[in-house]
């Protein structure tokens, strides 16, 4: 924890910076610190925002001022290796790959990679992708770990409207569009799972520090899950991540 820096972000928050690169180990430290902080008795914490390499801590200076908060956060950091952090969770996200409607760019991605569509699907579904952070729009995940073999440049002309649930590739990133939005990602499939629903008890499904594993489904399964989402809500399968799991 020698490299941890505390950055001033105004008078009601502080940024705890764990490093200056995108790495799973830095992100794991952020997750551990965030969990330790939420389990701690430090008063006045309003909310925390994990990002690639830092945790932003919003606090109420009426409850705790800057200097005592710093002391407490530094104290917590010092104890971090003594605190047991549960393993990350893996969310299993079903995807209907390919087809003109759901995955119109799968063919291009395959051609670009010099592989068959089946091989692209196999590669895309074989990795557990770390959710480094959420941002940009509600529920948008910044995922890491995609195999470079299927990296594909963005579309030259972005689409005006991409439906929620679309799964895409942009450069060496992959992700899911949580809401209908314009965008230039290569669309390879779609999930019937709602990553975001403002009116649901848990509005946003994914959390920073979890992993996403995609698996391929057919049209019948897509329709079944979509119907369940529309009715009482579909519960995605989830399991604790095995150490070094892929």
């Amino acid at each position, binding site marked *: 924890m020698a490299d941890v820096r505390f950055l001033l972000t105004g008078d009601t928050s502080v940024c705890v910076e764990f490093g200056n690169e995108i790495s799973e180990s830095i992100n794991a430290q952020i997750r551990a610190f965030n969990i330790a902080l939420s389990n701690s008795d430090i008063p006045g914490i309003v909310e925390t925002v994990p990002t690639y390499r*830092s945790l932003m801590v919003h606090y109420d200076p009426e409850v705790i001022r800057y200097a005592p908060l710093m002391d407490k956060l530094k104290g917590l950091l010092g104890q971090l290796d003594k605190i047991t952090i549960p393993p990350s969770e893996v969310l299993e996200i079903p995807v209907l790959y390919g087809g003109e409607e759901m995955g119109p760019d799968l063919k291009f991605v395959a051609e670009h990679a010099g592989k068959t569509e089946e091989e692209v699907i196999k590669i895309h579904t074989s990795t557990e992708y770390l959710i480094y952070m959420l941002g940009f729009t509600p529920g948008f995940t910044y995922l890491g770990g995609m195999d470079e073999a299927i990296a594909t440049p963005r579309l030259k002309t972005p689409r005006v409207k991409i439906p929620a649930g679309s799964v895409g590739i942009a450069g060496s990133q992959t992700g899911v569009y949580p809401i209908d939005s314009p965008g230039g990602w290569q669309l390879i499939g779609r999930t019937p799972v709602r990553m975001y629903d403002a009116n649901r008890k848990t509005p946003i499904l994914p959390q920073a520090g979890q992993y996403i594993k995609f698996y391929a489904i057919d049209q019948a399964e897509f329709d079944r899950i979509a119907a369940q989402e529309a009715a009482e809500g579909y519960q995605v399968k989830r399991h604790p991540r095995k150490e070094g799991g892929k």
Partner: protein
Amino acid sequence: MSITVLNPGLLTTVQDQGRIGYQQFGVSVSGVMDPRSAALANILAGNGQEEAVLECTMMGPQLQFDKANVIAITGGDLGPTLDGKAVPGYQAVAVKAGQVLKFTAPKAGCRAFIAFAGGLDIPLTMGSRSTYMKAKIGGFKGRKLEKGDVIGFRAPVETLKRMEDRVLKPEFAPKPVYTLRVVMGPQDDYFTGAGIDTFLSGTYTVTPEFDRMGCRLDGPVIAHKEGGDIISDGIAFGAIQVPSAGTPIIMLGDRQTTGGYTKIATVITADFRILAQLKAGDKVQFVKVPVEYAQGLLLAQRAAQKALSKINA
């Protein structure tokens, strides 16, 4: 039925103190651009400080009251009138059914806040009534008000106790050059010493690129050591982003939760009431203060608000 929007004005939205707890999921905080003025309007109108208000921008709305209620208007002076007669700001006003509240033209500042006794009948979305236009959630149908919209009151009243005591001095006064106090950081070390000097000595002009997400300024270019890009991190209300081009952008209520540009400093919370009133062409200078000092100012403001709230006890 309570108010009918005859004319929505330029940008009128329902806002409270913001959507707290969802930034980790990519959800912007939103909320009023000036939490202090909104809190004062609420206190005057007999509400809790956190109640949702209408935030009006430059050209305020025209609202017909279908039911009587007590209101209070704070923030900038956008020329409010009631049935054609000027109505004072920073004061509780009993409006009768049938009357029309109309804003004529901005006289001082940019944003006004209208509080309604008993609050507006707007559902909570993720714990807040704030409108988050980009995601189309919260407020009135997730959007700015439009002509013909009808918004209900939750618990309207014809009058409040001690109406004559519900008066405050307007807080915003136009100036040739506004001073915004800042806490330096989080990325002040990405700038050269000369760059920091430029930022703290230059006069910046507010550009027309000023919405609820951010306020772009024009002025002397602030020199980075190597460039304005960073690996994305969180963004506070009032954070002053300086991209590689070297001119600042102040991040506001509807800002994205994370961003990849260097942030040289953050406007202190006590000065949001000035920040919210800036408009295109206004001049701004930045003065750095220690974080403890900024917190002292904020706590003094909050203590004063608490004392004023006693009128509603």
